[in-house]
């Protein structure tokens, strides 16, 4: 069964939704960028289309793949943690996404198609998290909220 709920899958596939990809650089500093083409493939991978070979994100994704470091994708109120598992630079998969990018962005190029395996989904919706906090960490609550 997919880690991603059908609602979340729909949200990811919504081109108008903002999706943010966060990676770590060589000094473990986080680096987050909007990933405008982020989508799901048929196998349930998150697909990040990296347009620039020498971008910080492209190099960070490679570092993650090489040295087994996690990345995360934020979609609406959800955070998806995962690992890049494959980089396509040639072949039918690459071509399909290359043509997709070229249809949307005038004279754009595509450097790499990154496949990211989702490993954990965190629901950061405020109402959900608030309820969890109040149930699990009752001593964090300000008392004025509890008075008659």
């Amino acid at each position, binding site marked *: 069964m997919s880690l991603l709920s059908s609602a979340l899958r729909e949200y990811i596939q919504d081109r108008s939704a903002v999706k943010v990809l966060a990676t770590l650089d060589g000094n473990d500093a986080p680096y987050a960028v909007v990933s405008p083409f982020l989508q799901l493939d048929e196998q349930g991978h998150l697909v990040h289309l990296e347009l620039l070979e020498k971008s910080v994100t492209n190099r960070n994704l490679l*570092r993650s793949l090489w040295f087994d470091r996690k990345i995360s994708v934020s979609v609406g109120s959800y955070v998806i943690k995962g690992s890049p598992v494959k980089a396509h630079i040639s072949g039918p998969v690459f071509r399909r996404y290359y043509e997709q990018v070229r249809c949307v962005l005038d004279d754009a190029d595509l450097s790499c198609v990154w496949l990211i395996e989702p490993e954990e989904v965190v629901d950061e919706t405020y109402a959900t998290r608030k309820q969890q906090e109040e149930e699990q960490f009752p001593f964090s609550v300000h008392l004025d909220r509890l008075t008659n």
Partner: protein
Amino acid sequence: MRLALAGKTAPTPIDEVVRRYPDVPRLLVIKTDVQRRGVFYSDAALALLDETQHQTTGTHIFGARDGLIALRPESLLLRDGSSIITTPTPLEENPYVVDAKDGVPWLFDDGIPLEAVDYWPAPDFYARTSSSGVPMKNIVSARPQRLNIFPYRYCTFWNNNKGCSFCDIVSQLKKGGKELNIPAKLDPREVGDVIGEALKEPGRFSSVFLTSGSIVSGQEAFDDEVDYYIQILHEVGRHFKAPKFPSQIIGTAFTKKQLQRLYDETGLMSYTSDIEVLNEELFNKLCPGKAEWIGYREWKKRLVDAVEVFGPGRVNTGLVAGIELAGPHGFSSEDEALERTLDEAEELARQGVSTVFIVWSPRPDTPLGDQKNASLDYYIRLARGLHALRVKYRLPIGFDDYRHCGNHPDSDLSRLLPY
């Protein structure tokens, strides 16, 4: 024959090297060792090969380690997008095995599955035939992101038997010419036509590459080689709107006048001239033709001259790493070989010339064919050393990286650099 051992996950010999060099990715260690030991394709792996989808062997200027011309995958792609350019090797030489696992090709070492791999995808133009009736792939071949042109599949250093000791270009020409209908010398116009056809495929290619055997003839030595490259590059250039296009040549070490002509009269953007080994005495012994016609010190001087013509970060030289340890004249230890090689590479890097290496594959039809290449540890240390020089001297290697060549473990490491 033992191939896949289902479920076996014991440590492999590469694991120790991976532990020793935590700054080197495991995938790169695997790639380097596969280049070092070669591959053997099982019947199941060959059954996954589809000529309509994958590139098959036979188009390359050099031969295979098992000396055969047969239908096999041209090379492999790893999941980080890098290539393993390797040659089929007899099982008795202990190669890695490519076998089928879950319906896809995997690399195995001693029965242990290491990594899923992809066969290089075939470009669209491979299915077509040129105007003279030659399969287009025998005129222009492909790597995952590069168009390869081998204009002349003979090296005139062999005329007086002074070809390089590790090189089988001439024997491969004899085999390829007979068995594969590959022309020894390409018609520039036809090359241009095939390039035009190849460029119709969206997103497939990001560079044009030329290399041939040395041609000593001409008013000045090698003028004919330069003239021929210029003719070819003119035909390639007619397909591009800008005067310069991403391209690389591996040529002989040309004079500055010849280099200037190449730069001024064509769209060429980068230049490589392979010195093969960074030691004068070994160069003279292993590359007697290059020594006779140009000489070691002049070869290096011409590389530095090329930086003035093409610019820093656009010139490099290649090593056939491992030959410096081969035979009775090689360095006596890997430590010494590494130190002496990196010392000379640094002298070049200081002057703007990058050095890359390929892992030497001893091929049967060569004088060094019965020798062994170096240890995996040596190749990893060499890759780290050459990469460190590029960091120290801030030398970009984008024209000869994993996308455009894929044959240099050291330039794979440079993928993480911002330049």
